[in-house]
């Protein structure tokens, strides 16, 4: 693009004149020049006409728009809707496959599920508990025997500690704690 339309006027001045943005004195001067300059006249007309046509294009496009559309924040965002749709489609697919399988492969006989007997489970628990009690009592008895032996106090202490740590909350554990305390007190006195 050339900088000037003619020697006297720049493009920028001509555009400002076409848009009525020049101060009155300068506008008058430019008008005087344009009246005597063919190239400036031609360009000024082209500037005005091209803007008119461009505005026709814009206004015509604007007229095609639906008027008064309301803008509301959607309850669900597009992304969330897409995710939900994906999940729903997956559920439907799985459900559909299940239904198809049932229809195609009907089971010949009804299989009843084997339910575990609740009583059997309880008996198992009682047995385990009884075994633990027996072991605890045995360990405590062994510790007592060791404590009664000369020089066996150190081993007895270890046994009592083991019973305390291994069977917390049991009667044997409480007993072991008391006997350990006695043992330690006896050693301090000696």
């Amino acid at each position, binding site marked *: 693009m050339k900088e000037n339309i003619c020697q006297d006027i720049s493009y920028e001045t001509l555009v400002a004149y076409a848009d009525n943005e020049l101060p009155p004195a300068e506008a008058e001067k430019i008008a005087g020049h344009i009246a005597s300059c063919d190239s400036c006249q031609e360009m000024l007309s082209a500037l005005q006409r091209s803007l008119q046509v461009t*505005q026709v294009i814009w206004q015509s*496009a604007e007229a095609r728009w*639906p008027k008064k559309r309301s*803008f509301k924040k959607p309850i669900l965002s597009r992304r969330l809707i897409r995710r939900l749709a994906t999940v729903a489609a997956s559920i439907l697919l799985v459900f559909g496959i299940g239904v198809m399988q049932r229809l195609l492969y009907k089971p010949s006989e009804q299989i009843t599920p084997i339910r575990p007997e609740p009583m059997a489970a309880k008996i198992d628990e009682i047995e385990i508990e009884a075994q633990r009690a027996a072991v605890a009592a045995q360990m405590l008895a062994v510790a007592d025997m060791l404590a009664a032996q000369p020089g066996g106090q150190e081993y007895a202490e270890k046994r009592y500690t083991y019973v305390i740590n291994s069977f917390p909350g049991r009667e044997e554990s409480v007993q072991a704690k008391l006997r350990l305390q006695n043992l330690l007190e006896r050693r301090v006195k000696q």
Partner: protein
Amino acid sequence: MRMHPVFIEQVERLRRLVVGMGLGAEEGEDVLQDVYLEAIRRPPKYCGAEEIGRWLIRVTVNRCLLEFRQRGRYQRAAVGVLQQWTEMKNAPLAPDKQAIRTEEIEAMRQCLSEMNESLQVPLVMKYFCELNSNEIGEILELKPGTVRKRLCKGRIILAQTLLRKGIKP
């Protein structure tokens, strides 16, 4: 500052901006809806309605530019534009004038669709959205002098297109 009333206040201007940038009604509505959601979800950290208005225009311009790269612009034929125009004005044209007008519209449509975005955006803002050079400069983060230069360049390109096509205004 609540966003909804500011958006509603600015929506006509934003619509003009989208139209002026050459998007069709359908894509344009999508753009405005996206701008609205953006404004509601991530509003700017300004407090004045004026600043929010400028921010909305800037977001709309950027969203339109993104849309161009995906779809193109000014896809409507000149005949359709002229038909719409005569219907709006309720003034049918004589056949010879209609032919000239169609040629002019087609030339301008082609020119706008090929025009650099940096020139087109200020043109739309000034001559369709009625913003002045200072306001355009603030929105696009340009100096007013730069805006004026771009406006001038855009106007000259449009005018020269008419002259080159041999259409005497």
